[in-house]
């Protein structure tokens, strides 16, 4: 069978499936673009529960994907974000795929509004697959040589402050 059992349910273990490897490659590429050539120590990732990505496997494949890049040896820290929808009709908010209390319990997946049964909704949380931030090793912060020109294009760190 194609892929692993994911997102709404547990699955067996890293096997022939390479789904998380292709995602890990994309994560390494984002970190590389941001790092401006400096070695990366930490990559922080946010994964919503509605994604078919299992963060534990992302860990496993990240190491492989990072080999030979500035991310080699970096730690990946991931945060799982809860799934939450809001009904377009009546504004009820609900979790469409709550984690079963016990592994043997049936999955209670329901994307139809529990309030009015509408099928139209917006995702409040759970669709994320984000590289949130990275830590780079800056060899000489005193000279203000922070991350490269592309780095911090969205938010600049304050290089050199705070010691380390």
């Amino acid at each position, binding site marked *: *069978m*194609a*892929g*692993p059992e*994911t*997102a*709404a*349910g547990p699955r067996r273990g890293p096997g022939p*499936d*390479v*789904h998380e*490897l*292709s*995602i890990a*490659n*994309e*994560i390494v*590429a*984002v*970190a590389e673009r*941001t*790092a401006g050539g400096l070695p990366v*120590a930490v990559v922080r*990732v946010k994964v919503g529960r*509605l*994604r*078919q*990505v299992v963060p534990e496997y992302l860990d496993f494949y990240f190491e492989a994907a990072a080999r030979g890049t500035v991310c080699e040896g970096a730690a990946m820290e991931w945060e799982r974000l809860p799934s939450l929808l809001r009904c377009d009709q009546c504004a009820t908010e609900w979790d469409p*795929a709550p984690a079963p209390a016990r592994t043997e319990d049936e*999955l209670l*997946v*329901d*994307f*139809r509004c529990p309030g009015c049964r509408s*099928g*139209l909704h917006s995702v409040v949380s759970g669709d994320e*697959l*984000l*590289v*949130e*931030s*990275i*830590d*780079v*090793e*800056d*060899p*000489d*912060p005193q000279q203000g040589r*922070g*991350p490269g020109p592309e*780095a*911090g294009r*969205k*938010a600049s*760190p304050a*290089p*050199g402050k705070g*010691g*380390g």
Partner: protein
Amino acid sequence: MHRTTVKVADGALDANQTIAEANRADFDRASVSVVNLMSAPGAGKTRLLERALERAEGNRVGVLEGDVRGSLDADRLSLLHVPVVQINTDPAFGGECHLDANMVRSAIPDLPLDEIDLLVIENVGNLVCPAEFRVGEHRRWMISSVAEGEDKPLKYPLMFRSCELVVVNKIDLLPHVDFSVERFLANLERVNPEAETILTSARTGEGIDAWRERLLGPAAAGRPAGASA
């Protein structure tokens, strides 16, 4: 050494998304409507395309074949006299499990976009990665065969949620498998209440006219074989 935190807040798949949007702009410029056809391996993507296209006279359809088993599927489809382009997925590093926007981009120069109105992209058989990687398609459809089990929508919610049409294929096998169409549709409805469904058997032909009509429009459906209208 000094450690500096740099905020990124980029989607991990943003780069793919940018290329997908460029592909879509190319398709729009050429007025080509693009369907991304996805399924688990062996659900019947190629067979259903053959059944639809064997009566596609007058329809300007092309196929981009991304399935990984050599060029077998492309060879089968080219017998139907539609332009077929085989995509070469990179066999190293995870390239075999899905098409990404860049692979489709590299195939665009080989596609006769001026000669077609509809492009069907047969994605690699997999229910996981194709759910994540957009390629520039207008419509996302999937095929689920009754041999796969009725709980698939609950196990691959992202995939089933991202498709507007789910074709339930191989219904000729229903007497032989433990699959309740009713329970499958109920599971699908829990994940994607808005999904449209068509039940088909590419073997017996049941539902094939509805499938062909959905793919090619009413003019192409139900036309007797060999008729020229």
